[in-house]
């Protein structure tokens, strides 16, 4: 699903954010991406969603080679990726329902289909009773769950999350992480960047660690084994 082959990212000005990354996250797998802030976690997620281009090497996402992907195909790529952000990136001038419906509207779904899917998605994150309220009236944890509902509403094969629990207390954080694991269990590939080591160790999922733009720990294979044992 996500294949990096000697990929590097150098920003204009010479700062090398990622150096020579090679790894493969298979379809249906779940992994955590960790490291200090500035280690390159966000940059890695940005490369996957084609928000930034890689400087060297190849990145293949769900069979699409990003170095040869024309600009007009980028929306097609992004529709296959559900993205969850630390600061939610919700639109505060419209209701929870309208926020969650956004990916479906972009993809041109029919009205009835949108209603069905949005409610299913809100139900999944436990916010079905809040569909008419404005996001600003919700707590941080609830806003994050709206963000997750929006990310999964069009059932993307890949789910990316950048510090999804960054502003939340430990209890809420674990709740959110459990939600991601549930999505992984129904077949979605999930990659979560987080620096909350204590929490992610407890969740017993494969961990990749970045240090100054290099992959110093690739737990993908061990993780798989651990899953098999479990």
């Amino acid at each position, binding site marked *: 699903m996500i294949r990096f082959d000697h990929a590097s990212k150098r920003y204009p000005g010479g700062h090398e954010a990622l150096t020579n990354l090679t790894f493969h996250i298979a379809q249906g797998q779940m992994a955590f991406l960790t490291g200090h802030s500035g280690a390159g976690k966000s940059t890695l997620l*940005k490369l996957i*969603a*084609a*928000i*930034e281009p890689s400087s060297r090497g190849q990145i293949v996402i769900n069979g699409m080679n990003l170095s040869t992907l024309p*600009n*007009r195909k*980028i*929306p*097609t*790529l*992004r*529709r296959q*990726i559900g*993205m969850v952000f630390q600061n939610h*990136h*919700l*639109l505060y*001038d419209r209701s929870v329902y309208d926020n969650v419906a*956004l*990916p479906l*509207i*972009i*993809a*041109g779904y*029919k009205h009835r289909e949108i209603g069905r899917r949005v409610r299913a998605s809100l139900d999944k994150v436990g916010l079905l009773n809040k569909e008419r309220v404005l996001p600003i009236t919700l707590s941080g944890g609830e806003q994050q769950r709206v963000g997750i509902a*929006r990310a999964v509403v069009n059932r993307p094969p890949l789910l990316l999350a950048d510090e999804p629990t960054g502003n939340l207390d430990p209890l809420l954080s674990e709740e959110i992480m459990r939600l991601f694991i549930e999505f992984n269990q129904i077949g979605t590939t999930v990659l979560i960047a987080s620096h909350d080591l204590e929490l992610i160790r407890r969740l017993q999922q494969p961990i990749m660690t970045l240090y100054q733009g290099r992959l110093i720990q690739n737990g993908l294979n061990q993780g798989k084994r651990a899953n098999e044992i479990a």
Partner: protein
Amino acid sequence: MKSRKQAHDFKMQRAKEHFFKAYIFNHLRSLLFSLGKLYRTPLAHLTTISVIGIALALPTALYALLINAQELSKDWDSPTSISLYLKKSVSDNDAQKLAKQLEKREEVVSVRFISSREALNQFRQYPGFGEAIDSLKKNPLPSVLVLYIAQQAESEPRLSLFAQQLQALKKVDQMQLDLEWVKRLRAIIAIIHRGVWLIASLLAIAVLLIIGNTIRLDIQSRRAEIEVIKLIGATHSFVRRPFLYGGIWYGLLGGIVALFLVEGGLLLLQNPVHQLTQLYGSPYQLIRLNGVNILSLIMLSTFLGLVGSWLAVRRHLHSVEPH
């Protein structure tokens, strides 16, 4: 084999239909969405729309003035006449013979003969002239033939040629083409006409800039939203669409405001103008904008809205990351 191909064709057809439906649906949605935005914050948008309306009303009002001036000058224009001042030596009899001769020419509709005595009597009727004329021993005025020119002879080269021929006649002392003042008036109208176009062009550019600037601000204030919908897979045309429709709405509503301003102004002027023309004994009525004018105004303003927003979107939407 054949049936499979047919099934495939059918599927493709369905897919195309679905795509087309979704396309129309998306457009309708942005159309209504952008209108909804106008409706929700009416005050801010009302200012913009009024400015556009006033900018468009100015050239439209000038245009209305112009068509009225043209209509008025049309009445004065015909018939064109040529005055022939005859030499003193020509007797009234000879003058009338000449008049009959000239009347036969196809350029001429009719000829009016004003003898020197008649002309003097006409003068005597003007207040203050009577005594002055009585003090003269001899009649200083010549006899005049006024030739009314047929419409088909009014064209410039033919009329000049005819005028030259008349000037060359032995009995004629002086020839005066009474076209000059009509020409002058027409020249003035032509200048105003050009001026209206100039002002209209300038104000059209102003409308483009106003709409462009409004859309630019709109893009800036909705930066976060644009970023988010790009991140979740919106195509460029999807992002662009509501702004383009926003521009169309601005243009359309601005045009309607302009229409109301101009028509309102004309309605206010209608009575005073009617009173004035009645004083002159003319049946002239103020001409209002006709259907074609109104349609052109609305279509032009809508078009300006689209172009203005398109320019703004082209320049500013790309600057919003991510691409």
